[in-house]
């Protein structure tokens, strides 16, 4: 049907939605079901990778962690690196869905669902690592405060316990947030599809009908969930950063760690968001819903967080120098010039410098450029954690114990597995649930009015 849309005052022109609400429903519901061969190939690849990881894990459980590239004093290496990496990925999702929601930032609408899904699956991935990484994987539950015949409780002074709570909370809350937001859309899908799928969605929509009463409580609750998720997301990566900051390892016990890590996390998350939705919007044919305008904003956020990282990096070096603490100084000198210089420079270039390219609008709005940059960001942020963890551990207080680290097949196997696991869930989600928030998009489309007020005919 012909559409006469007019720009709304509070919205940038790029956001003009040239569809009716019916179109939105149709388009989004259209993205579900029927899987293309491309999609199936992707999914197959993801599952394959996941199986590689699973096999590696089983071998580690059988023989011990010796297969991984641990060279004491480097007692934490690729696994914890990857753990922090995935936790970080999660953050952008919550930022966009919760924080920007509170800030009433309109452009989040089109992308928040996918980023939220990314969050949940990233945290799901991260949550595996504490188990993979410990020496006796089969007793990981000892970290939980459950009543037992030993009458023993865990040690709440340990940052790892904080982790356990932070991550499980983060996972729970962000999944609740995702599911909660999905309900009205699932209802919409339910009313469009037929057959067994209808039954499934009916169950999933838990009887949602969009009555005024439901909306009244729903909108409130959503607001509070967002309000809770916002400090949560900030806390989670702070806690993760305290795993390091609370210790006495030189270059770990830094007071700037919490903000530094949170910024880094969001930065890496945004990187992953770009990596995911640039291909996704084409694959799902929703180009007109996720537009240049969104990417421009995402890029600006990336630029901001990237610059915060740049600042944090320089601060780390400055403080190390200014403190006059020989241990700090040695560590930070060896970061770019020590035996693991390659990691150090990858981190600095990919994060601090590449992000600065986003000052240029041309680049911010050029999807190819953005995609390439986003890949750089992913790599860079993985290496940031690698450098912080491994290169700091490799040279701390006692020179006699210093050592280098070289990852082994086991490390790569688990890393690959984690990507497979993440990809698998994300792809499955994208095909089974509206990857774009139907009801919130509709919210932005002017309601038809009989008295002149826009709408059609």
């Amino acid at each position, binding site marked *: 049907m012909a559409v006469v849309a007019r720009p709304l005052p509070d919205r940038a022109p790029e956001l003009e939605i040239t569809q009716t609400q019916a179109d939105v429903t149709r388009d989004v519901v259209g993205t579900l079901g029927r899987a293309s061969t491309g999609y199936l190939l992707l999914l197959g690849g993801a599952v394959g990778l996941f199986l590689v990881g699973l096999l590696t894990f089983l071998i580690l459980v059988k023989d011990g962690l010796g297969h991984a590239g641990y060279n004491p004093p480097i007692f934490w290496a690729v696994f914890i690196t990857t753990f922090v990496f995935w936790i970080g990925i999660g953050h952008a999702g919550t930022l966009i869905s919760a924080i920007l929601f509170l800030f009433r930032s309109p452009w989040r609408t089109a992308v928040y669902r996918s980023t939220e899904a990314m969050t949940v699956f990233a945290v799901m991935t991260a949550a595996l690592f504490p188990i993979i990484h410990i020496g006796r994987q089969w007793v990981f539950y000892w970290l939980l405060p459950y009543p037992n015949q030993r009458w023993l409780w865990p040690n709440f002074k340990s940052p790892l316990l904080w982790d356990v709570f*932070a991550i499980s909370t983060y996972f729970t809350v962000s999944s609740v947030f995702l599911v909660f937001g999905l309900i009205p859309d699932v209802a*919409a899908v339910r009313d469009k599809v037929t057959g067994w799928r209808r039954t499934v969605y009916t169950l999933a929509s838990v009887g949602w*009908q969009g009555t*005024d009463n439901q909306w009244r409580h729903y909108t409130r609750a959503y607001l509070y969930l967002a309000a809770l998720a916002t400090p949560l997301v900030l806390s989670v990566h702070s*806690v993760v950063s305290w795993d390091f900051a609370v210790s006495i390892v030189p270059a770990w016990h830094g007071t700037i760690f919490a903000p530094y890590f949170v910024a880094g996390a969001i930065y890496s998350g945004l990187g992953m968001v770009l990596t995911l939705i640039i291909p996704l919007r084409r694959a799902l044919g929703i180009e007109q819903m996720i537009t240049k305008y969104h990417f421009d904003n995402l890029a600006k956020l990336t630029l901001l967080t990237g610059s915060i990282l740049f600042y944090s990096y320089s601060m780390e070096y400055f403080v190390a120098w200014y403190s006059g603490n020989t241990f700090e100084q040695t560590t930070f000198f060896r970061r770019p010039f020590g035996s693991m210089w390659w990691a150090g420079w990858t981190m600095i270039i990919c994060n601090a410098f590449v992000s600065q390219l986003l000052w240029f609008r041309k680049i911010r709005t050029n999807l190819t450029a953005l995609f390439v940059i986003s890949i750089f960001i992913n790599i860079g942020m993985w290496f940031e954690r690698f450098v912080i963890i491994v290169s700091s551990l490799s040279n701390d207080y006692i020179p006699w114990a210093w050592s280098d680290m070289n990852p082994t097949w086991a490390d790569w196997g688990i890393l690959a597995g984690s990507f497979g696991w993440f990809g698998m869930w994300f792809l499955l989600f994208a095909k089974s649930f509206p990857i774009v928030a139907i009801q919130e998009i509709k919210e932005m489309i002017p309601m038809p009015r009989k008295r002149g007020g826009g709408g059609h005919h």
Partner: protein
Amino acid sequence: MARPKPTRRQPGVLASFIHVDAAVDAIRALRARGHRNLVVYTAFPNHEIEEALDQPVSMVRLFTLIGGLTGCAAGFGMTIWMSFDWPLLVGGKTMSSVPAYVAIAFELTVLLGALITVAAVACLTLLGQKRRVAYDPQFSDDRIGLFVPSGSDQLGPVEQLLRSAGAVEVRHEAA
């Protein structure tokens, strides 16, 4: 939000609108006529309709508060009690070093806050109609639905009113 499926259906008139202002007019008129327990279906929250219905602010926020406080208390309580239940000295710190427990308490605050909020929504939406109210799939798409519970005697006038307000479709729901 899961609603039970009552055996008896709520009698009344189900109208669907395309135009939001039409729906609003209808609601105002009906309320002026003293109709209560109107059920309005929309695919997304709409302020004009909310105003027209002018219902009280949801009490969900109260539950959120309670959940948060419970979580916070539980967090501190558990950690401190457990540290004294079997006192073990680590790193020359005091048996229960509260600053370290803030993290736990905070996370539990958020956790319980969120969970109880959702639970609250579930409960709150469960209350309400005892009988099944008519619904049309279009309401989740682009139509606005308005159900007016009314006895058989009033069906005519209500339909009349709805139509004049601009309902594109009106349906009678018998008990």
